[in-house]
């Protein structure tokens, strides 16, 4: 009799546990599903509305008829220039800062303060970076509204992301590699550049991809520092203004000559922007997988 009672009690508790488990897994699955649906929904909406506007002329010709017709080629090129510029400035500076912070600086209160500062910088609204860029690069350093000013501003914008990613990647390189190298009588900076950095680069790139995407997509930092409202002229040097996709979208959607009529062009431009960001990410991912080939520990 007691046996049977024990059994049914056990069965019940197993059922209850099983129920709790499915409830929990269900919640987690549902959350994941919502995210995928949201992302898929946005992409689907953009593609459906934007695909009609895409044509060879759209991506190779400049806008015409007060930007209500024609293509967006200057904006595509401008965004690519600005993104490459931002990477060229943000990546070396960010990696160098991270190397200093993790490999050289004596860990203590000052370094903790600097790290807090970097994290705060990551949370500063992008329009503040835009105003800083306007005040410092455009006006004070007299770079004007140009690719250079825009790249510098975007470079600083993505700096905290890159420093954070690089710090994590450098810390993930086993301490035993550093010890092995130093014990051979190899100097500290050689150890850093020959052993630590090569092994950290794939991780640095992973984190930097986020920053790159942000640099390509931001509007506020470039509207005062680099972006032209309209120009058919392609930039001849880094001191020229350029059109840029995010700013072009903003202009068409809020201040264009005919907002309703240009809806298809707006969606087309958004689609191109998404495609440009994804292609830049893809290039970074390919470089990373190439670098990872021989780096296993």
């Amino acid at each position, binding site marked *: 009799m007691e046996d049977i009672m024990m059994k049914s009690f056990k069965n019940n508790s197993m059922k209850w546990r099983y129920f709790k488990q499915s409830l929990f897994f269900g919640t987690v699955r549902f959350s994941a599903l919502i995210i995928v649906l949201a992302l898929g929904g946005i992409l689907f909406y953009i593609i459906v509305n934007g695909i009609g506007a895409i044509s060879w002329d759209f991506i190779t010709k400049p806008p015409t008829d007060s930007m209500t017709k024609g293509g967006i080629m200057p904006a595509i090129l401008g965004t690519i220039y600005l993104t490459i510029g931002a990477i060229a400035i943000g990546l070396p500076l960010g990696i160098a800062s991270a190397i200093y912070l993790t490999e050289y600086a*004596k*860990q203590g209160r000052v370094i903790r303060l600097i790290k807090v500062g970097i994290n705060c910088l990551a949370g500063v609204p992008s329009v503040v970076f835009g105003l800083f860029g306007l005040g410092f690069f455009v006006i004070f350093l007299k770079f004007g509204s140009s690719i250079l000013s825009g790249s510098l501003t975007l470079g600083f914008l993505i700096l905290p992301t890159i420093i954070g990613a690089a710090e994590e990647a450098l810390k993930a390189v*086993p301490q*035993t*590699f*550093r*010890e*092995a*190298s*130093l*014990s*051979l*009588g*190899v*100097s*500290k900076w*050689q150890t850093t550049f*020959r*052993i630590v950095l090569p*092994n950290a680069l794939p991780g640095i790139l992973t984190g930097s991809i986020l920053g790159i995407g942000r640099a390509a997509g931001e509007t506020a930092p470039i509207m005062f520092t680099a972006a032209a409202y309209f120009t058919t002229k392609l930039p001849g040097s880094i001191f020229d203004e350029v059109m840029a996709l995010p700013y072009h979208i903003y202009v068409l959607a809020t201040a264009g000559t005919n907002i309703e009529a240009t809806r298809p062009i707006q969606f087309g431009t958004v689609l191109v922007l998404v495609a440009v960001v994804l292609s830049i990410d893809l290039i970074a991912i390919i470089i990373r997988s190439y670098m990872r080939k*021989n*780096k*296993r*520990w």
Partner: protein
Amino acid sequence: MDSNIIIKLNKVNFYYGQSRALTDITMNFRKNKVSALIGPSGCGKSTLLRLLNRMNDLIDGTRVEGEIIFEDKNIYAPHIDPVEIRRKIGMVFQKPNPFPKTIYNNIAYGPKLTSMNTDDLDALVEQSLKQAVLWDEVKDILNKSAMNLSGGQQQRLCIARALAMKPDILLMDEPTSALDPISTAKIEELIEELKKNYTIIIVTHNMQQAARISDETAFFYLGNLVEYNKTEKIFTNPDVKHTEDYITGRFG
């Protein structure tokens, strides 16, 4: 200084922050001998080993008192470059730690970067691997990643890597504790062979190992050097009762 003595410690104290890890260590290591450092965990033997090539410099907040004399100079004197010291005093670690590079580049890495005379890098690589009795196993796969080798092979590679710098002293920090008995035996044979040309100072937890391979043994306890004697003497008739208790397994 007696020409048989290669490195000499004089009243060395070592601190991690406020806590003292080594107390008044005075001892001489003899040339072309194998000296074993034994003692329970936390007794300071690894700390002492890492003092000899200034690896403890890497840890923030450490402090050294006293002097360690190598080639008539105190290696902790202010003008001494630790990088120079480490070129002459190589080290093999507890866990095999090859670089994620090819076998060849693991060996060539140190000589290439330290502007050693590297006219014939290939010969140096071959010679080092032969000294570490690894050559026959890897001569056909020199361009494969060192990470694919077995643990024992990796450790011998690390020994070859240290030997390629042509050091005077080889420090070994429990080099076989992560290896199986067969690999351990190979490394012990290797140590026997190497002492003809090098001075070896080895930390070990394995007392049979100390008895098998070393000429001299130092027993440490709580940061103090309890006894330092010929290995034979330590293991048969130690001067200090404490040493005997440890060796016979009465504590530790």
